[in-house]
């Protein structure tokens, strides 16, 4: 490009005497296109009733839940990420893990804060790990995917509590074991379906293993939940 100007300068030298008031079109664009104009430009969401606002967000969260239950190679989870779903799931799971066997406080199950810390801190560490290994996914997208994929484990927790209502013998343990194993594999498979594409191919296993460990630990916490005698 520089050479074209170099070569053309002698040809247009005479034009420097002519006053140019902007008739010569400038090459290139000055305005950078912003992309598709968002819907907010057309109408303001400030005047709509609160019910509409909440329902819109709830519908978005619900749509993502459906995507997690039937994991295909869709990019909806990555494109429109949000952290409401993971927060909802994390709080539900942590609350349901309470009320366990607490004869003495220290020998009991995980406290609410421990569950919270494990889920969020674990997700942050896995995201950092995948970014350090050269992944192309953004920080919050990865947090969103990991959080949403806890959903099968939350469903398993509900099922386990229902099974425990009927007794806590060997049969109930085997049923709980099967349910937790199935949901933990589902979670790992679902999150790998979303995350694996963003990694260089020779490091995929290095990224999938921490995800496997993360859901394994959460599954362990669910399986070892025993109600107070």
């Amino acid at each position, binding site marked *: 490009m520089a*050479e074209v100007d170099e070569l053309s300068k002698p040809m247009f030298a005479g034009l420097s005497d002519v006053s140019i008031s902007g008739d010569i079109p400038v090459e290139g664009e000055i305005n950078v296109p912003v992309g598709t104009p968002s819907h907010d430009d057309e109408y303001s969401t400030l005047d709509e009733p609160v019910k509409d606002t909440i329902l819109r967000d709830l519908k978005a969260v619900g749509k993502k839940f459906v995507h997690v239950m039937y994991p295909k190679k869709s990019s909806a989870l990555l494109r429109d990420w949000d952290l409401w779903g993971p927060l909802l799931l994390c709080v539900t799971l942590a609350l349901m893990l309470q009320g366990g066997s607490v004869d003495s406080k220290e*020998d*009991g199950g995980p406290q609410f804060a*421990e569950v919270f810390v494990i889920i969020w801190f674990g997700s942050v560490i896995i995201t950092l790990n995948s970014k*350090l290994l050269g992944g192309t996914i953004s920080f919050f997208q990865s947090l969103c995917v990991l959080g949403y994929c806890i959903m099968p484990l939350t469903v398993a927790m509900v099922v386990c509590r229902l099974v425990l209502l009927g007794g806590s013998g060997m049969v109930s343990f085997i049923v709980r074991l099967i349910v937790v194993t199935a949901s933990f594999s589902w979670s790992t498979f679902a999150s790998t379906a979303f995350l694996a594409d963003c990694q260089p191919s020779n490091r995929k*296993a290095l990224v999938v*293993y921490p995800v496997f*460990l993360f859901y394994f630990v959460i599954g362990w916490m669910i399986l*070892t939940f*025993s109600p107070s005698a």
Partner: protein
Amino acid sequence: MASPDDLKFQEFEEATDLLLADPGASTFSMSGSSSTTPAGATGDIKLDMSDDEGQEESSELLRGEKQTSGFWTFAYYQSFFNVDTMQVLDRVKGSVMPLPGRNFIKHTLQSSPDLYGPFWICVTLVFSLAISGNLSTFLNSLGIPHYHYRPQFHRVTIAAVVIFLYAWLVPLGVWGFLTWRQREERQQRGYSFLETVCVYGYSLFIYIPTSVLWILPFEWLRWLLILVAMVISGSVLVLTFWPVVCDDTKVTAFATVATIVVLHVLLSIGCKMYFFQTATLTPVPTLAPNHTAAILTNKTH
């Protein structure tokens, strides 16, 4: 009419701009094969027009410049995670099968340490210790009536503190001591801090299957396993650090190696004692009725 030299120079600039814009591009995976070529190939870069080689050579030059990026940039930490799956598996294999004469750092790491292995091995070890310890306590107490299962989740916290302190403070001490001695004695180049952390991290790998096997409630099996694990991981450490200290005075050399081994032994025995408490629970319920019966008979007399 551009001269061929100008065209080549611009193409090189484009390649560097592309790589500067995306430093995480997978050009680094070619480093293993091309580590010996940059010296000879940089002279050829202007003659070879293929895009792949241009990017590969420019990635070599870039890495030479990038090693000095500051610790506040993300790229600095990314350089510690520059490993592939096969490399990590090779390093794990090298830590499990120590052969005499094979220095782990020189042979397996090839002086390019990573932080992925040590970190995730420590995390896995923490959870495997806590979970296996919990399982073994549960299996031990199956015969006790009125036994109520407890998850003992606080063990995870304790295991995490112990393992991570060991895996980071002990290499710090060893590295500091070796660097101080090396500076005093003007010896060969010692190991960097990262390489020391890497050796310690990978040497802990053998404890993961050991801790899972410790669930089996046979005491002789547990002691046999701990012996095997200590020998293997201890020899990895000794084989790595012996070449560096053997030039020192005999006393210092032996003392250093002995300290490393003793700390390692303490860690493994301490973990076994704490997380896998043997059947000390069973005698307690049976003693109490006898004791109260004895008190009653004494009192009636």
